[in-house]
């Protein structure tokens, strides 16, 4: 038994094991998005669920990102078939109302679903305080690099994506980011 050769060969095993240890501490499903920090992709989408006053917009109205420049925009992608979206629904509506008098705009975007289903779901969930738009052919969701729902993008007044939240959004997380954007950015007086 040639122990010298055995030991040298054994050394080659170490980096392999190191790689596996590295792998065990990382989640292969967690894929970072390249979008935060970049300009938010523009969209012009039609409202299908009006929301409630004072945040509401009429059905058929078009929400254009360009018009919201200067405000903080919270863009939330959801679907009626999405179980996890139920967790954040009430939270988002409440947070939206909290910022009603600030230059913050909440928009829901329907993902891979029909407006009828969406309206029905909102009714079942007790209403939504802000309007939701439909996204034909999922173009806008693809523009935002969506892997699934729910995903929430918080866009600063400068038009750059400040943060992306994957999974149900918590009130604390959203509030923290929105507050810091309001404090640092120069909020303009864009028409809601």
């Amino acid at each position, binding site marked *: *038994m*040639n*122990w010298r*050769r*055995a*030991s*040298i*060969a*054994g050394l*080659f*095993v170490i980096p*392999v*094991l190191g*790689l*596996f*240890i*590295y*792998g*065990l501490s*990382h*989640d*292969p*499903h967690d*894929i*970072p998005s390249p979008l935060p920090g970049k300009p938010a992709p523009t969209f012009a989408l039609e409202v299908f669920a009006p929301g409630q006053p004072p945040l509401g917009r009429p059905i058929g109205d078009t929400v254009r990102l360009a018009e919201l420049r200067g405000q903080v925009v919270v863009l939330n992608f959801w679907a009626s*078939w*999405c*179980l996890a979206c139920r967790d954040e629904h009430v939270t988002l509506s409440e947070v939206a109302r909290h910022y009603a008098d600030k230059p913050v705009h909440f928009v829901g975007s329907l993902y891979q679903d029909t407006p009828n289903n969406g309206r029905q779901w909102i009714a079942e969930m007790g209403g939504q305080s802000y309007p939701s738009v439909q996204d034909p052919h999922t173009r806008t969701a693809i523009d935002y690099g969506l892997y699934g729902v729910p995903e929430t993008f918080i866009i600063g007044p400068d038009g750059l994506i400040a943060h992306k939240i994957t999974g149900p959004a918590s009130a604390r997380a959203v509030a923290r980011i929105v507050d810091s954007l309001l404090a640092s950015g120069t909020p303009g007086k864009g028409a809601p």
Partner: protein
Amino acid sequence: MNGLVGRAALLITLPFIILGIIAVPVAIKRGRRDWIAIAYGSVLANFLLVSAAAAAMIVALVTHDFSVSYVAQVGSRATPLFYTIISLWGALEGSILFWGWVLSLYAVAVVWFNRERPGNLVPYSAMVLLAVSLFFSILLIGPANPFHVVFPVPPDGPGPNPLLQNHILMGIHPPLLYLGYVGMSVPFAFAVGAVLSGEAESNDWIRLTRNWTVASWGFLSAAIIAGMWWSYDVLGWGGYWAWDPVENASFLPWLTATAFLHSAMVQERRSMLRVWNLNLVVGTFALTILGTFLTRSGIISSVHAFTTGTIGYYFLVFIGLVLLTAVAMVAGNSDRLATRGRLDSAASRETIFLLNNLFLTAFMLTVLVGTLFPLVAEAVRGVKVSVGGPFFNRMTLPMIAALLFLMGVGPALPWKVASRADLKEKLLPPLVGAGIMAVIAIVMGIRNFYGFLVFTFVGYSAAANLREYWIGARARRTAHGENWATAVVRLAASNRRRYGGYIAHFGVFFVALGITASSSLRSEREATLKPGDTMSVYGRTVRLKALWGREEKQRSVVGATMEVIDNGTVRATLEPRMNFYPTSQEPVPTPDVRSGVFGDLYLSLVAFRPDGSTATVKAIYEPLLYWIWFGGGVVVLGAIISGWPTTRRRSVVPVVIASSNPARDAA
């Protein structure tokens, strides 16, 4: 009660295993041959106890005993009996229990069939198998314990993963896979046993190892084909192989085992490649452990991935131990075992086998690198990348083509030396086959380079293999006056290894043609139809007759009744469906397929209007697709013929053992 029996059995087996592992080296060192029986007794005890645990689990599943954690996880009163039983291997803990059981079964078989073999190879091999069993037993009382007590006992459970309830192959693919995968522990045990007992210098252990490897290889081949078939029938995209990490994990040991089956023959005849063969056998086993580590640790995301948790760390420790001891063992003995033989000529079957090993090993390394590269790239660059089909196809196609060609040259060339006349007489005639297949490929419409190459090489190699049969049968006819059929059968029986191997080659040829034609000539159409509408793909027309829905005990089903029309008459009815399970938000599609000798018509229900007015159907036509499953069957047939035990086996043993070191083996 079931939980108690199961857990107790798994706990009690541990001291038996440990006793057995200790008994072997102690017995050999002290020269107490009778203590070996203690180790063999442990092997039997382990098998009986793990069988008891497995039986307890099956009883618990069938009686819906939700006080057992595994049953609470995968059981459901609504699930049909067949799927309830096979959910034994549907989730992590049950699959580990099944693995442990198959391993204990192999250990008993190894000991039983070799109980009269002199020397220390079998005792040491039993020790190795017990050591592997120890690892899985530790898992079963630790992180993979399926017998946790659930209290309060729930009235019902969620049932198995919906994807696993759709097809009968779910009852066939996993057992075959485990028999193949776990079976690779046996050659590994023999290899370690051979080194420890001093038999590695003789060639007898190679013959023994090779026989067991053929069996495991046969199971693994069948398992891979069955997995592809399941994927094709269930997943709805008309494909059968996505280079998913766990598909690759099952394929990697198959590649090295195939290489070993060939290079073992070189060792048997010429006493060469001994270190290389050790590497292959050890590598095959290491790859099986790596494969199961990848599936169960969660480090790579995959369709097959079981739940993650601490079990990954256990596997990491085990794989570390396996790699370190195996690598050290082979490297440490490499100078002693290095080839001292000679080759008579570079133009010989030996050289072809070397090339065969080269391409199979390169193939294995390519798939391994591709599978692990996302992890490596993330570690080095911090960026996530994907390595999928396009990479693997591009990099492996040249190797596959080379291997297909070699499969025709190897059988044709003689051992030792081929004269120039030999080369001409053996290598030129199969070119006719190549020509014929080239023409067929063009006529069929194959226009891509590798598709054409595969057809041509298969033509060449199939002709070469056929010719070997023809030459052998012709000789028998002349010598014995047999008719063709008898001559062929007797020929195969006279040299099962060789002619069984040629049949396995034919199986591979069918698979290669099936894969090539179904991907090169695949034709796809998607359309939204009202009842009465038709659509066509590749000249085949289908008509939507009706869209229907029905409730079943465990799911709701929506289906489309489609008629295949030919010249106005209905040739067949297909019913692609979507299955809605309460536990899953995505429906599970079940396509329906009409298979024919020339191709498959594959229908998948993609979408439908809830009012039943329209259905969106995807129709795919894949030429020669059934040849893949047929070829798989032929491969398995070849393995059975090749590996069928001959009565000569036992008499070989004592003669060769006498030549190894008697002092070391003194019992």
